[in-house]
């Protein structure tokens, strides 16, 4: 695993994309073929099944390191990563041995078949045989959360460099539900037909944000539609079987059973890009309704009745078994309209309606009505555009509504962990309820590193009370909090819960007294909840 650890170190430590890609490409050209496949799998979120619970790992590591459980947990809290914490607290290895990445992964699989005593003995022996950097990666394999600073995009670029294949083709090949166990380097990378795997989705095309579309040119060249506030999904119907993929490459087929009905109406060899929306009486419900279904593997009848979903279709990528992504958007949309024209209105699918406009000001007016449609804004697509892979600038734009905002007072701060260890980055904010400050949201993002540094120094000097890791601070600083939505919440003292709250601005110019009130929040709830 030495080679893989060296690759990981280079990729992890460097901030330069060129260095990362070069290191990955070198690995993908020279490492043993099995290890290459696993490296791609790990960097794209495919990991071996977890053989041990993290609770057991914590207990065993604390035991080996001779630490009380509370001290191990405190360390974990600061480091923010269990695999790393374990690798740091363990004593140095007594007996170092070298095995390949694939060896360790197969070893882990075998471990899953043993009883607990044997698992423990195995893990302890492994810890004692690995250098700390390899131990960290070994723990990453154990805990399953293999998230590192390599995007699928970077991985694909490196793979393109080492194989000479086109990036878009490789992106497509790497999509879907393959694992290094179920395929080979030859079948996945070297074979030529990416649709051989019937469930394999196409890479999603993602838009960049635009602040003012006026500069895009003649309105006639552009198509506009709502940017629906649901879950982006790709519906695949091939050989009589359907699959539903999320943008994050999660297979969601079973989570939205109503969409299986579409297989009765759509022809085989169809792939549609759309938005899954909770939808009743020809109206999209707010995201809150859909939220109840997120994270559920199966759906009870009650929720199915309360929040039935449809696929709001944006685009068609495969028609009659052919990849039509290179056709212009307008042509694809015509095909999509024809396809859906043959589907009865009782079926859970709709064509995302066009928002017609003759000039950009008309579109601006339409955008202002987004919230009334439970939409996040508008999508603006070039009529002549092909369906590209990934986030590409130029042809597709999202023009989101401005977020809702309130001015709020910082009242509690907590240190972050991982990248933010030792910085106070996790804040609780309050609004006025009479002369009392009532907490209503937390926010963690939106400030620059320099600003977090300033707040941290200030928090250290203005702490009035400590509750474990949480510091109560003197109410003094006002921040403008931006959020995408608001809903009633009996679980919160303020009675509201926000969606995607973040700090938009540090309002150093605002005195405490000018922060918003709970009544202001209730007004927002009435308007947008």
């Amino acid at each position, binding site marked *: 695993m030495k080679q893989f650890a060296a690759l990981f170190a280079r990729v992890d430590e460097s901030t330069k994309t060129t260095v990362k890609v070069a290191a990955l490409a070198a690995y993908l050209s020279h490492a043993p073929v099995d290890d290459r496949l696993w490296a791609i799998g790990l960097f794209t979120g495919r990991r071996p099944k977890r053989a041990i619970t993290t609770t057991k790992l914590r207990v065993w590591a604390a035991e080996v390191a001779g630490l009380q459980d509370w001290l191990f947990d*405190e360390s974990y809290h600061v480091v923010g990563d269990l695999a790393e914490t374990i690798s*740091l607290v363990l004593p140095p290895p007594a007996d170092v041995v070298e095995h390949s990445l694939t060896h360790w992964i197969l070893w882990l699989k075998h471990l899953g078949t043993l009883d607990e005593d044997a698992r423990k003995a195995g893990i302890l022996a492994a810890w004692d045989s690995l250098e700390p950097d390899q131990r960290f990666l070994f723990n990453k394999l154990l805990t399953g959360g293999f998230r590192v600073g390599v995007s699928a995009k970077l991985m694909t670029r490196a793979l393109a460099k080492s194989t000479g294949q086109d990036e878009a083709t490789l992106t497509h090949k790497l999509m879907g539900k393959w694992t290094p166990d179920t395929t080979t380097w030859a079948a996945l990378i070297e074979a030529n037909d990416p649709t051989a795997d019937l469930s394999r989705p196409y890479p999603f095309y993602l838009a960049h944000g635009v602040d003012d579309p006026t500069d895009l040119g003649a309105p006639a060249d552009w198509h506009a539609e709502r940017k629906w506030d649901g879950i982006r999904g790709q519906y695949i119907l091939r050989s009589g079987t359907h699959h539903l993929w999320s943008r994050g490459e999660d297979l969601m087929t079973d989570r939205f059973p109503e969409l299986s009905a579409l297989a009765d109406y759509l022809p085989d060899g169809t792939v549609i890009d759309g938005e899954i929306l909770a939808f009743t009486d020809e109206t999209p419900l707010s995201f809150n309704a859909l939220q109840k279904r997120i994270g559920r593997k199966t759906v009870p009848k009650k929720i199915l009745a309360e929040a039935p979903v449809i696929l709001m279709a944006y685009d068609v990528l495969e028609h009659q078994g052919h990849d039509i992504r290179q056709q212009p958007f307008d042509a694809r949309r015509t095909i999509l309209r024809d396809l859906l024209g043959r589907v009865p209105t009782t079926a859970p699918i709709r064509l995302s309606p066009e928002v017609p406009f003759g000039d950009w000001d008309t579109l601006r007016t339409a955008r202002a009505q987004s919230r009334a449609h439970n939409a996040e804004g508008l999508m603006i697509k070039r009529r002549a555009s092909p369906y590209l892979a990934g986030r590409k600038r130029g042809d597709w734009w999202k023009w989101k509504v401005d977020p809702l905002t309130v001015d709020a007072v910082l009242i509690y701060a907590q240190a972050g962990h991982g990248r933010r*260890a030792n910085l106070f980055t996790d804040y609780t904010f309050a609004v006025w309820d009479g002369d009392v400050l009532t907490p209503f949201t937390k926010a963690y993002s939106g400030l620059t590193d320099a600003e977090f*540094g300033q707040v941290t120094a200030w928090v250290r000097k203005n702490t009035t009370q400590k509750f474990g890791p949480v510091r109560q601070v003197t109410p003094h600083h006002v921040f403008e909090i931006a959020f995408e939505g608001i809903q009633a919440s009996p679980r919160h003292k303020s009675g509201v819960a926000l969606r995607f709250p973040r700090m938009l601005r540090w309002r150093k110019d605002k005195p405490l007294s000018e922060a918003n009130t709970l009544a202001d929040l209730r007004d927002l709830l009435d308007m947008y909840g």
Partner: protein
Amino acid sequence: MPVLGFTDRGIYCAAGDFYIDPWLPVPRALITHGHADHAYPDMGSYLATTAAAPVMQHRLGADARIDTMNYGETRQIGDATVSFYPAGHVPGSAQIRVCVNGEIWVASGDYKTVDDGLSEPFEPVTCHAFITESTFGLPVFRWTAQDVLAQELNTWWAANVAAGRPSVLGAYALGKAQRLMRTVNPDIGPILTVTAIENTNQVLRTQGITLPDTVRITEDVSAKTHPGALIIATPGSTSQHWARRFPQASSAFASGWMAMRGVRRRRGADRGFIVSDHADWDGLNMAVKATGAERVFVTHGYTAQFARHLCDQGYDAQVVATNYAGDDVEGAE
């Protein structure tokens, strides 16, 4: 009346009517070392070790009245007997031993227990009560051995030389910078320094500390005039103008915080070397044990965790509030 008390100005000795490392102006200040969070300006008078005084004078200005003592000497101040012992933190750094009526307290300022090849090595001082830092008071902090560190630094520098890249290493002006320049192999290439570091170098050389040859970065020093250079720079200075004369540089940062991957990534350097002038977890525990003290006061860093751990070990340990910053993760001294 305890030998030392903790006030809103600093650590106070009533028997001798003096403060140790005060952060607000007082008539008489005993100083453990010259870092800015321990040696504040505007004290009526200062008392420090002979080796610490030159840098303090340089930083506090010519008007500061600094009296000195050698390590191990004793002096009577009121009813207190004081003496200074090496803390191993930076050149001249001291633990201050205070004895009143046979009861001994030691204020250790900042310290480390390993010999860095530059500072006077840490000496444990037997006492009844020990005041300790805990900047790195968690078991995840364990430092790279000095010889391994040297090898890592040299390998990184030599690889950059081979690739035609300058090497920029971030480190604090007093202590860490000099320690690093004495650790690396000067045969690999020229060592350049930014002004804040070179000024400190001059002071230390004048007092007799040997440092390798270094070149101050001025307007006419660049990657062209000094190919293969190792540039030792203060953490805040790497975005300054001079950096543009060293394009394509590989950047590295040397700090105890580099033990944590998250912090390494946040700093955004190409390399992180795990090296600190503070004690690591094992160092802190060994230091406390070696004093034989029953009572321990924890002043800064992971105070709550370290104090609780000491209580678990049977010590009478508690956290006290001070203004000491230790080794701030964001790079302040």
